Structures are given as structure tokens and as C-alpha cells.
């Protein structure tokens, strides 16, 4: 199986990079404590966040039939971030509140984008992006308001907003890992519906897909993955845009393969980006979200132009 080999290759690449990343950092001769207590959680985090962001990107691109759909561009990450910050400034220490608010606001934002952009079941690609930008700006405004009220925590919030993989709370990492895994598994089991939904909603109905139910579940699962990633890493953009698109070129558009391939690709992308973030300007650390945006924005422009010319994803 050709496709099987490709997936195996991606899996091996993820494992090798994870191993290599243990020995990459500002300290060239690290102690075991640094490797075990600092770098290891970071690698786990890169994998979880890469899985969540790229997985949700693949799902959203399929449901919205839009190659530019990415949780960051659509404002979903921004909404989840607002949820996370709201939970922390309201003083809710309990994880359930934090994740509930992150997931709830992520889901709400997707539905708003969908409602703004879709008229009679169709939306031009640019309109969805525009709606996403607007929702994202609104969420940013909310974040800045929270930010200015609670300025004493500004610095840590700022770093979080820029997207980092420095979260050290193992419980949070475990919860995020679990819900990202749940989201990926559920959407993978819906791959066949997702494939058919790319043919248009009316056509999917005539092929036997309960469109509304499927769409609702897919949106919920995509939001879950975004909330899981954002709760531990903040707003890391463009992973969900770049990775699924590259994977579609490598393994094809079938979501049964595309979803796992995107998850692995997302992990690889973030492992590399984070290794660079830690080592480019020692002893300083660049927020990894800034790095992914540096790669992601030109890619976005490329997709925008390509789509207009060839019509193909």
C-alpha cells in the first residue's frame, strides 16, 4: 500500500524529530533535568497542538469547502483564547470551566462565521475568510479589554497570545491531549461523510448524508480540537492552513488518510518551528506563533492566487 507507506513515513518522521528535539535548545550541554522537565513536556505539547490545529484545519477545509479555512484565520483560535483568558480573569481555577469556555466560544465563533458567510448554503471562499477576520477582530478586542483590566498579568498573557509551547501544567497538557485525541478519532470515523460533503451540501444529501447532523458534529469536533490546542498554547496560526494543504498534495484528498496525515504533519511542522524558536536568537526565545505566521502568510497568498487560477485545492 503506497498510502500506508506515506503514513508510516510521517509517523517515523514525527518520532525521530521528537527524539532529536530533546537535544535542541539554548543550553548546548543540557542536564537530564532540563531534558526531562523542560524539553520533554514541550515536545509532547508540540505534538498535541500540531495534531489539534492541523486536524481541525483539515476538517474545517472539508466542511466549508474552502482551502483557506484555518482555525486562526477563521477567528476560532481567537475565540477560544478569549474564553481561556475570561476563565482565568474571572478567577475560575477549575479546568472544567476553562475548557468549557474555550470550547463554547470556539464553537460559537464558527457558527457565527458560517451564518455571516453562507447564503442559501453557499459562500464564496473570500467571504468566509472575511467573516473569519471580522469575528477574529471582535475576539481580539475582547482579549484586549480583558488584558487592559488585568494588566499586572500582561506579560504572561502577551506571551500566551503570541503562541508558545511553554505550558508546564501537566494536568492541562493531559486534558488537552485527551480532547484532541477524541476530536481526531471522531472526525476520522466521519471521514466518508466528510469526503461526500466536499461535493456540496445538496449533493451530499442526495448521496445519503444527514447533512445538518454531520455538519454540526464536525463543527463541534473541530472546535474541540481548537480549544484543546489553544488552552495549552495560545494562538498559533497557519498550522491548520499550511499542513492539510501540503498533505493533500502528498496523500490526496481522502479524509480517511488526510486526517491522520495532517495530524502527523502538524506535529512535524510544530516540532521544527519550536526547535527554531528556541535556537534562532539565543538566549532569547521567539514565540513559535510568530514563526508559523512568517511561513503561513506567504503560503496564504499563494493559495489565494492559485485557487483563483486553477480552481483546484
Amino acid at each position: 500500500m503506497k498510502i500506508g507507506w506515506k503514513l508510516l513515513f510521517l509517523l517515523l518522521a514525527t518520532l525521530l524529530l521528537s527524539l532529536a528535539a530533546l537535544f535542541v535548545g539554548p543550553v548546548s550541554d543540557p542536564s537530564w533535568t532540563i531534558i526531562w522537565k523542560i524539553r520533554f513536556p514541550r515536545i509532547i505539547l508540540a505534538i498535541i497542538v500540531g495534531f489539534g490545529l492541523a486536524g481541525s484545519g483539515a476538517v474545517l477545509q472539508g466542511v466549508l469547502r474552502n482551502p483557506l479555512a484555518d482555525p486562526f484565520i477563521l477567528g476560532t483560535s481567537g475565540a477560544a483564547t478569549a474564553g481561556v483568558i475570561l476563565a482565568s480573569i474571572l478567577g475560575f481555577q477549575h479546568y472544567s470551566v476553562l475548557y468549557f469556555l474555550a470550547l463554547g466560544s470556539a464553537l460559537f465563533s464558527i457558527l457565527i462565521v458560517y451564518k455571516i458567510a453562507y447564503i442559501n448554503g453557499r459562500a464564496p471562499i473570500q467571504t468566509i475568510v472575511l467573516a473569519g477576520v471580522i469575528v477574529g477582530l471582535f475576539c481580539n478586542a475582547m482579549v484586549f479589554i480583558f488584558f487592559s483590566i488585568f494588566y499586572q498579568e500582561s506579560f504572561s498573557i502577551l506571551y500566551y497570545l503570541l503562541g508558545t509551547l511553554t505550558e508546564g501544567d501537566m494536568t492541562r497538557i493531559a486534558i488537552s491531549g485527551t480532547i484532541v485525541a477524541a476530536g481526531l478519532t471522531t472526525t476520522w470515523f466521519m471521514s466518508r461523510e466528510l469526503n461526500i460533503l466536499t461535493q456540496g451540501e445538496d449533493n451530499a444529501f442526495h448521496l445519503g448524508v444527514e447533512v445538518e447532523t454531520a455538519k454540526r458534529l464536525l463543527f463541534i469536533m473541530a472546535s474541540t480540537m481548537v480549544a484543546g490546542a489553544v488552552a495549552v498554547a495560545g494562538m498559533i496560526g497557519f498550522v491548520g492552513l499550511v499542513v492539510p494543504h501540503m498533505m493533500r498534495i502528498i496523500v490526496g484528498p481522502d479524509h480517511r488518510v488526510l486526517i491522520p496525515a495532517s495530524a502527523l504533519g502538524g506535529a512535524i511542522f510544530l516540532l521544527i518551528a519550536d526547535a527554531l524558536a528556541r535556537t534562532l536568537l539565543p538566549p532569547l526565545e521567539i514565540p513559535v506563533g510568530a514563526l508559523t505566521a512568517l511561513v503561513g502568510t506567504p503560503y496564504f497568498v499563494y493559495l489565494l492566487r492559485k485557487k483563483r487560477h486553477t480552481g483546484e485545492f
Partner: protein
Amino acid sequence: MPELSLEKVSFSYDSNFSLQDINMSIPEKGFLSLIGPNGSGKTTLLKIMSGLIKPKIGTVRLGNAHINELGARELAKQIAVISSNQYFEFPFPVETIISMGRFPHLNRLQQLDQNDLEIVEKALHITQTTHLRNRPISQLSSGERQRVLIARTIAQQTPFLMLDEPNTHLDIKHQISIFRLLEELNKNHNMSIVIVLHDLTAAATFSQTVALLDRGKLLTIGLPQEVITTENIKTVYGANVEIYPGLSGKFSQINYFQTDS
């Protein structure tokens, strides 16, 4: 084959009625064309017949069931549809697109079995798309895409096939191949075909029954030569036409550009 019939169906978008009091039954193993001017309600009628939208008043029956009470999966085992809005951006191989026709017949975790693969193979063969099986749909011509969509509906194995102007944007050679294919499905595979058409000559040539719609009302339904008459066309389209019987007696040609108006 279950019977498909419309009883007192009315539908409106916003305020103005787009369909009013339609009663008709879909002829079994027939070839029915829906014709009428722009905005007469052809496409809306097709959407109602296929269960995509629900009539505001009236019912559509499929056998003993109300069509809108059937689940998507059940409905997709009975009625296959090729709508006029198709999306080809995702580069799925032709074979995968055709396999999507098997979806209503499979359980969630069930893989395509030998029988399904044979059905897909047969659909490729009938539509002469076997050589395209591994090509991405996004790279095919409009004529080839239309044949692939028909192959998908063949794989769906439904008694009814409904199409919304499958011949638009096609050159005459591809139009002929599409209509020949539909004729074959109708005659050799016992499919009931309902098709929305703008082309009156095609409607007159290929249909056994023609339904003429005028501003949301079913003006008349019957044999092509009874429905497509100079008077009816004048009334509904406001255009003068000349109708020539064709050589075979069945074929007619409708001339609209060279008449005095």
C-alpha cells in the same frame, strides 16, 4: 418500483409563489422532461420531487411514505440526483467519486465489498469512463465530469434518476453522449428519469412525457407532441416557433430563430 407522486404541492420563496397546486405522478420507468421559461419553477419542482426541499402545502409520496419523513440514507436508495451545482475543487480520483454512490448502502464501518466494487466497475463501463478511473475529477473536461456524475448515480442503484439541465455548457457531441446514456439507463436499466431541460428539441426527442410549467403552475403534461405545440409555446414563452416533425416521426425540430414575431 415504488410510485412517486405529488399531491397539491405548493411552494414559495418569501412572498411570491413559485409553485402552485401541482398534482402529478412520475411515470414508472418513464422519461419525463420538465420544461418552461426561466423562473417558471422547474428546478424548484425537481428539488421538491427529490425531497431536498419540503413543499409549503401538499405532499410528495414515495410508495406509502411521505418523502420528507424518510431519512437521507433511505431516500438516497430510491432517488439519485445530479443537480446543476457541482463542485470539483477536491482532486478525488474518478473511482472514489463513483464509490460515493455506494454510501447509502453501507454501514458506518463497512468497507466496499466485492459486490460494491463490481457495481462501481459496471458504472465505469456503462459510462465509458474506465480509462479515467485514476484521474482527479478536478482535471477532467465538463463532458467527462458529467459522465462521471452519471456513473456515480448508476452506482447508487436507484429506481429514480433526476437531473437538472445536465447538458448545459456541453458541446453537441457531449450532449449527444449524455442523452444516449440516459436513454440507455432508461431502457436497459429500468430507471425512471426526470430531467429539467431548456432545450425543447432535446425534450421532444428523448422524453416519453413532457410537463410544461408556466409561472409556477403545471400548464399541461403529456406526450411530447401534445405538449410542445406552437400554441403552448406561444402562450408560455411568448415566442413564435415552427415545429417540424422529424424523419423518424418521433423526432421533432423546433425552430425559434428564423420565425417572424
